[in-house]
């Protein structure tokens, strides 16, 4: 594991061409390089201000939090995959949050329930009660809960860009399930205390924001996510499995690169569902491995908005989730 210290004294990793180039170009006058064995790397040391140890309020919060827990050894960024993200922060009202849940394969359940309810809206006639859809329950250990971005009693406003107003609970359920491979839901969080206050964003963390821009992430969050093969995810979903019958086995479909292990099953009499699932997963991970590093780096908490929102919200809402 190779790291370097940048001008601000932050320990940053070198693991691709981009940050290597950044490291070399920003060397001033010397480039401090840290080399560690992969097993011993303490990733909590990476990030802003980690070397200079200047304790700013935000960082403290996060670091304290990490220190409280026993030290966990976590692996390299490319072994990660994104679980969720907050997107379109710049275009949404502050009271709303658009969350993208990434579901890989069929193993992990999305893990939440929705219900009918009423919400109060401001209309030209004044305040009105209108029917709405709310998150009613989280499955412990499910994907939704683990993100910390959704909580019980959050009102669901949109699913993949389609407003849920006027739709029935069953319709919304089906929309979510149909989009479950790449679910983007816009919610109005029940707990509005974790909202980003935009006016204070620049002043509160100006130092860091320039740092991170300098290091490697100048793109707004939403853009980064757009880069992130959403199309590929789509196509994963669409990848229906075709197995040729025993007529002419030499006609191997070009559509899917069936591995040899799966080919051996082709002549079998029945579809083995588990096998297919594995097959798809293998394909996915193979195709995605390149993008993964990039993706992961973006979710490394160098972006101030991330460091603000994710952990704090996660912790606080963890408390409320259990209450149901």
């Amino acid at each position: 594991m190779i790291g370097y210290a940048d001008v601000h004294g932050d320990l940053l990793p070198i693991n691709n061409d981009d940050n290597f180039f950044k490291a070399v170009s920003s060397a001033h006058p010397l480039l401090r390089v840290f080399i560690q064995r992969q097993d011993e790397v303490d990733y909590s040391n990476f990030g802003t201000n980690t070397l200079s140890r200047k304790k700013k309020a935000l960082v403290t919060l996060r670091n304290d939090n990490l220190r409280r827990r026993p030290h966990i050894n976590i692996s390299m960024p490319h072994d990660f995959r994104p679980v969720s993200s907050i997107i379109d922060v710049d275009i949404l009202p502050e009271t709303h949050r658009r969350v993208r849940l990434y579901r890989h394969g069929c193993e992990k359940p999305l893990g939440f329930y929705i219900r009918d309810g009423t919400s109060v809206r401001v209309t030209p006639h004044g305040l009105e009660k209108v029917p709405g859809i709310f998150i009613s329950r989280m499955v412990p250990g499910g994907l939704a809960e683990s993100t910390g971005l959704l909580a019980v009693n959050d009102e669901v406003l949109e699913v993949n860009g389609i407003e849920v107003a006027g739709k029935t609970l069953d319709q919304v359920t089906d929309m979510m399930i149909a989009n479950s491979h790449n679910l983007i839901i816009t919610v109005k969080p029940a707990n509005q205390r974790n909202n980003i206050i935009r006016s204070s964003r620049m002043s509160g963390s100006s130092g860091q924001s320039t740092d991170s821009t300098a290091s490697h992430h100048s793109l707004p969050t939403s853009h980064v996510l757009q880069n992130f093969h959403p199309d590929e995810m789509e196509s994963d979903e669409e990848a229906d499995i075709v197995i040729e019958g025993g007529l002419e086995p030499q006609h191997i479909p070009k559509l899917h690169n069936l591995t040899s292990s799966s080919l051996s099953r082709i002549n079998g009499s029945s579809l083995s569902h588990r096998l297919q699932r594995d097959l798809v997963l293998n394909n996915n991970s193979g195709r995605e491995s390149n993008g993964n590093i990039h993706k992961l780096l973006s979710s490394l908490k160098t972006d101030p908005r991330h460091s603000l929102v994710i952990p704090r919200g996660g912790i606080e809402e963890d408390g409320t989730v259990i209450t149901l």
Partner: protein
Amino acid sequence: PSPAGEPGHVGRPGLPWEGTVEHGFPSQPSALAYDPVLRVMAIGTKAGAVKLYGAPGVELTGLHKETATVTQLHFLPGQGWLLSLLDDNTLHLWEVCQKEGCSHLEETRSFGLPGRPGCSPGITRVTVVLPMAAGAMVCLGTEGGAVYFVTLPTLTLLEDKTLFPDEILLSVPDDYRCGKALGPVESVQEHPRNGSQLLIGYSRGLVVLWEQSTRTVQHLFLGNQQLESLAWEQSGKSIVSSHSDGGYMVWAVSGTGQKTQQPTMSTIPYGPFPCKAISKILWRTCESGNPFIIFSGGMPRASYGDRHCVSVLQGQTLATLDFTSRVIDFFTVQSPSPPSPGFENPRALVVLVEEELVAIDLQTPGWPTIPAPYLAPLHSSAITCSCHVSNVPLKLWERIVSASSLPPSALHPSLQAWPIDGGKNLAQEPTQRGLLLTGHEDGTVRFWDASGVSLKPLYKLGTANIFQTDCEHNDSLNQAGEEEWPPFRKVGCFDPYSDDPRLGVQKIALCKYTAKMVVAGTAGQVLVMELSDEKSEHAVSVATVDLLQDREGFTWKGHDRLAPRNGPLHFPPGFQPSVLVQCVPPAAVTAVTLHSEWNLVAFGTSHGFGLFDYYRRNPVLARCTLHPNDSLAMEGPLSRVKSLKKSLRQSFRRIRKSRVRDRPVSPPQVQEANAQLAEQAGPPEVEMTPVQRRIEPRSADDSLSGVVRCLYFADTFLRDAAHHGPTMWAGTNSGSVFAYALEVPSQEKFSERAVEAVLGKEIQLMHRAPVVAIAVLDGRGNPLPEPYEVSRDLAKAPDMQGSHSMLISSEEQFKVFTLPKVSAKTKFKLTAHEGCRVRKVALVSLASAGSEERLENCLACLTNLGDIHIFTVPSLRPQVHYSCIRKEDISGIASCVFTKHGQGFYLISPSEFERFSLSARNVTEPLCRLEVARLQDTSCLRWAVWGVWGALLWWNPSRTRLGPRGSSSSEVCEGLVVPGACRGGWEQGECLS
């Protein structure tokens, strides 16, 4: 460019969705009326609908704004006016208006009797409505015993004419009065010869002949039995009264100022034991002999109190017509022109019972029934499936008609023409013959002529006689013993009680070119049938197909298979079974398809699918689709087979029925309050049920994943792009598609070589939604034609040069794949956008309104929300979308069937199909005309223009009274309407209403 790109090219966008016509029998009828001049009848329902029927094709429909039961309907004969009384005690006037040459039914005014101060509102509840023959007035009898008079058509109360019971009591002797009230008015009848005299009957038994002009009592009949109904003898010399003890009395009417203590005749026809009331009685004179006395009820309470009977008595001849459900009302139809005055000569008796309409021919000895050309009781046994065949060849049509013209039963229906024949059908002759097949719970398949507005029964096919059922039916009801009394005669065909639910028909497939049919049922039975013009006696060959294919760990806990009868069986002309295939385990058949050119039938259940060669009579293929975790599939339908008896089933069915047709009925006050709320800002409080839904993607081990949802035969490219050949496709509930390549020998070698099936491809849709339909499109993007369609020059040959594509419709997505490579070409994810799921889907060809040549293939789909979406094929672009069925109406959505040319049907009640059209060109709707002759010139045009304030000006009682009397001075109203003004008037009228 594709015409599909033009908005509004298909369908009838812009219009609010509405069906074109309703077929079948109105659900929950509650009132009946007949107009002897226009020769039309009206039926009112509990939902507030009013329907007029005349000659076949003449149908007018109206719906009250209030959802209230129509309790009475009365025509003003010949004038095209109809009065309806609702159970909220309001009176409504309907008018037949002419719009663009066609008649329509419009509600013009309504009226409620004002309450009397200091009295309970109940006393002004209207019990009797009698429009006077003169046409200017209607007489209302009430619960309180008062008789009110209201002008027509303004519906204004003439307060000075009101007749209170106190006025009558003055003339009643003290000993009769005994200080008691007269009770509610039970009947008011106008003197047949003298319009100013009214016969008024009170509940306690008093009957009064009242002279309106002098306000005097002409005649008192001091009856002592509780009165139910009254009728005049046509000459006006005697009256007949019916009573609650099951008896009726004949009274002589003579002179003035008399009091009659005793009737000339009094009898309790079904006595001497206590009898139920005779609720209505009619007296009809007849030139050829004794008068007819026709009455409903009066049955001996203890032994036959539960029967629904109408008795017809002529001299010594008595027939007790035993109906299948409660009698609502009845009337007689007179011969169009009475040969001699003084006789009514009833031609037919028409009886409306809760579940059907029956007409009895009174001129033919034996009083046979006259088959009705409409109001078919679709639900005589519950409908379990339906199927539509468009463009039926004339030859097959004639063969089906001739098969049905030989009724198997001894009792022939009457040959008399349908007596209710008023109005003129203006609809064009249907351009093609459409056949609607309905499968029923009792194992019958009924064939209906669905070409035009009235759905006519063509042929009925029974499948029950092939099997040994639990209860062997004894048809002894028709040949009841000679001595039985009362002389019951079963009439009507409503019989919702299936002897064995396993007989229920689940799927039907018909080849219109070879007249081969497949009927598949609840116990896994698949019957291959052939149309034969001769009766036959032959044995049906039986084959079983094991769909489990030695899967271990499954035991079937559902019903047993149906045991076929052994030996040769007798079959009447019509569709006769040749082969019976029984699935093992005997789960209900969920999909069936037939290829008559290849002699193959494919069928699927919740366990798998099979392919059967009915020419060589051997199975070709059986495939299990069960997932190892799927345990529910083996449970079978809640095993109600043996345990539940007829009565229980009956009650379930009632519950189901009531669920289907229960519309929320709210009293007017609530509606009013709601309306006020709506006007104020803010919607009313929405009550929320604490329902929650889990957001989990489907996994493979959902229950019932193995159910075969669709089967399809196609001649296409499965193995390679160079050779096409017969293929079979099957789709399951878990999103799997199986494709088989078939080796079908040529026609000559059918008997020598067997058909072979080789698995070509298995496709697993990643979203795992149930596969609803599969279709193959040719190189030009058109669906492949049906077997024989091309060889008989009825369709263009498909393009076999270009690459074929396959359209798979799941409950969530439509996808087009290339063949033979099966790579996705286009898709539309319906659920991801709308959150709805596909329930029914069909490829329809829609003709442009401008030219019939311009055909467009579209995909029509009905969702679980009751919306219909139309997509282009194969590009899958959404075109239009209508909301069609209420989403709560699950049975309506489940019953929907599309025709090939963009029409469709769905059940709006257990007994009624609503027909709709997605096509701008192909619309079947009633267009008819009733020629009305109004006494007063008050076409609805004027009402619409004048509006509310105009009505005030219009009201002029003196004019009404002085108005011309008698039909000689009547004017035909459309003569007064200037066409241009008419149109303008209507537009304004619509704005006002």
